[in-house]
């Protein structure tokens, strides 16, 4: 429970960060890429690579693997592009391909996978140290600790919950779009989100008693 004078950080959209989910690739750009125009395809790559790479990184927890999976996703996109009929939004359609690639990659190397990406934790620490929005050192320290605990908790989540949380809260997709991306019913998306968040909350705070009835996970 945050203190009464705690000011919540501005929401994602308020901070001006552009969600990949709101990104709309024009049909003419897609058509040109289908016709073999490599410059158009490169534009698509530049526009979408950040989201895809971050999704891969979050699922795989490894930079090298994330880079390989991103490349594989773009190869699959290139091959599948002529079959894109515009029935779904391009980003949702592409994320479905990318998510499948990442999950396949995850399953292939599941046994030797580490739970946390040490390099990301270092990067996270560096960012949090340099990003001093709040002048109160105690508050900065608490925020940092929270985010580090959260990152660790996310890494330990089952991959399906992690994927849904990343798609929803980091990439900004709606429930409907996540359902299309993961090819599950919308209700399942809600369940995955709730279960994932419940685990995160449990790990972040000491367990609460009474009050709301917790469903069994």
């Amino acid at each position, binding site marked *: 429970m945050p203190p009464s004078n705690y000011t*919540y*950080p501005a929401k994602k959209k308020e901070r001006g960060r552009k969600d990949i989910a709101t990104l709309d690739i024009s049909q003419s750009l897609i058509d040109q890429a289908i016709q073999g125009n490599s410059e158009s395809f490169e534009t698509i790559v530049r526009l979408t*690579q950040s989201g895809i790479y971050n999704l891969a990184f979050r699922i795989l927890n490894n930079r090298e693997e*994330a880079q390989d999976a991103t490349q594989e996703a773009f190869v699959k996109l290139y091959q599948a592009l002529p079959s894109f009929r515009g029935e779904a939004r391009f980003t949702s359609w592409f994320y479905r391909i990318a998510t499948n690639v990442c999950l396949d990659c995850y399953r292939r190397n599941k046994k030797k996978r580490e739970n946390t990406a040490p390099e990301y934790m270092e990067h996270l620490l560096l960012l949090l140290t340099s990003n001093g929005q709040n002048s109160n050192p105690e508050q900065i320290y608490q925020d940092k600790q929270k985010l580090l605990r959260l990152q660790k908790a996310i890494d330990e989540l089952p991959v399906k919950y992690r994927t849904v949380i990343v798609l929803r809260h980091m990439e900004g997709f709606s*429930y409907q779009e996540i359902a299309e991306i993961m090819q599950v019913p919308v209700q399942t998306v*809600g369940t995955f989100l709730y279960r994932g968040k419940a685990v995160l909350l449990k790990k972040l705070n000491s367990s609460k008693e009474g*009050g*709301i009835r917790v469903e069994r996970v």
Partner: protein
Amino acid sequence: MKECKWTHHDVTAYLDHQLSDLKEELLKQHLKTCNHCQQLREEYDELNHLLVQLPREPVPEDLTKNIMSTIQPLANLQKASIEETNQELSWWGFLLRGIPLLVSFSMIGVITWIIYLGQKYTWQETPLLVWQSITQMWNGFWSILHLAGNKFSQFFYTTWDTAFTLPERSTGPLLSKFNLLLTKATAYQKVIELTILAVVAWIIIALITAFISSRICFDHGEERI
């Protein structure tokens, strides 16, 4: 401790505006009176904010370059495939490619015919029967060709001569010449019909065989990208 009917699932769905209007309103009212639920709502709300706050992993500098270098061989292959497809669609190549299949079909037809003759008569008689049939067909073909050519030359000569002769030999206005042309054409209707049918049949057979052969004989079932 007080036990609520509302669940974690409901609270997270409430924060994501995924509840129905009625349920959302009911939970909203409930949150005003239930401290536990209110506390949980705040915790989930904070969690949502923290999730959004997590920094993104920076994209490696050479990622675009690596992706494009992976794509390049595929792009070249696709380009070659498009060129090959265009080449396939040229008329000359299209018809040329149809010849092997046309020959194959003809050979299959001849062999079937020989087997039929061999079964119906005897194998000793078959070569002679085949030869006779070929000779007859050849003669028939030439006689038809000769007849058609003869009739056509007559038709065009007489039509030209009657319709477009000099004015002093003309017997009426232009309309009557046109009617005369139609009359002449009607007289040779069967020849015209036969010729048109033969040409159309030839074009259709050539197109079909060219299409099939270009797909079967030359593509080798390669998967297009």
